[in-house]
């Protein structure tokens, strides 16, 4: 009897970690499916006005110009505090964002700090070897995670540069883990007429973006879940 109990007890204790793991995986799977299901569903109407902490991902050149055009037509008091992130090697974008955000503060007479500006490590520089890129991508993801933990934005605005992928993937993870539910808005670049960028393709196919905007009708025909919004520039 005791022997049987001993044997039975040993079997149970060796299966315990496995059953725990399987239970955890199943829960996570259901959670991921739930997040994908809820992604893209509008948030309810709010009776009282609210402001959303907003992460704005900047990319070089044309990307920043398009993002600035979008920010100019958004009500600033609805999207505050604002966090601007650009790649570490991109000096111009944060400069332009600083000038822009200061002009918001000036026109609204707001005296406090409603914006922060940060740089993020790049996953890979142009021409970098793929071997070293594995390491730098991991560093970039870790850095992105660190920044996202600090910011925990409720809204993410991005429009194409590679820098947005780690940030959006982490935002999605935060949704799954219950750390923060964010609404992710992606505007594909005006330079993309017939084909999506790699960033766009990933965010569309993996259903990470809550709303996906395209500027040319050809893309809307190809990607029906996208919203055609015309040219921003």
């Amino acid at each position, binding site marked *: 009897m005791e022997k049987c109990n001993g044997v039975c007890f040993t079997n149970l204790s060796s299966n315990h970690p496995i059953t725990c793991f399987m239970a955890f995986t199943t829960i996570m799977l259901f959670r991921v499916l739930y997040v994908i299901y809820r992604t893209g569903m509008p948030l309810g109407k709010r009776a009282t006005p609210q402001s959303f902490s907003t992460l704005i991902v900047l990319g070089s050149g044309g990307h920043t110009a398009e993002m600035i055009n979008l920010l100019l037509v958004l009500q600033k008091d609805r999207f505050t505090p604002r966090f601007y992130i650009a790649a570490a090697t991109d000096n111009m974008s944060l400069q332009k964002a600083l000038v822009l955000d200061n002009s918001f503060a000036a026109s609204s007479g707001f005296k406090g700090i409603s914006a922060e500006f940060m740089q993020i490590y790049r996953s890979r520089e142009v021409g970098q070897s793929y071997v070293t890129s594995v390491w730098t991508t991991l560093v970039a993801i870790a850095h992105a995670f660190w920044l996202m933990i600090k910011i925990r934005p409720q809204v993410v605005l991005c429009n194409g540069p590679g820098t947005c992928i780690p940030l959006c993937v982490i935002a999605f993870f935060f949704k799954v883990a219950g750390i923060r539910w964010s609404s992710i808005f992606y505007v594909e670049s005006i330079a993309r007429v017939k084909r999506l960028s790699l960033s766009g393709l990933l965010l569309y196919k993996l259903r990470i973006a809550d709303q996906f905007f395209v500027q040319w009708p050809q893309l809307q025909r190809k990607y029906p879940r996208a919203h055609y*919004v015309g040219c921003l520039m």
Partner: protein
Amino acid sequence: MGEPEDGAKPKRVVFVTVGTTCFDVLVKVVDSQEVKDELLRRGYTHLLIQMGRGSYVPTKSTGDDGSLDVDYFTFSSSIADHLRSASLVISHAGSGSIFETLQLGKPLIVVVNEDLMDNHQSELAEELADRKHLYCARPQILHQTIAGMDLKSLLPYSPGDATPVAKLINRFLGFPED
């Protein structure tokens, strides 16, 4: 008619820009005798080249002998003034340069850099050329494009509008319609 008393031609500047890129092929072709002759034939007097990170250096020329006045520089913090004083712009296919030029209402020839990997830039240039907002040319045939272009046939470009995006974002987040 319309020419000043002293017989000098009115100043008509062609501004060439490669943005922050290296586009030696374009700079070289613009500096070629073929293209310069064609520009002169079409009534342009000055050629100003913004050469960016390129290594090919154009030859400066004062244009005293009736040839094209050629000058160049690498970068400037803003090319808006150069665009404004130009009668014709020849640009690489970067969206920033394209839209900055179109929004100023300047005639534009876009040259796509075929050496770039994954040349998605050509999509935008071709689409806007199809819509008759600009001319699109390969470097080898630039002189032909200049010879045959009819700038009056270009359609003005109406500036874009980001408010449709803002409306959708606001609606999604539950804000009341304005």
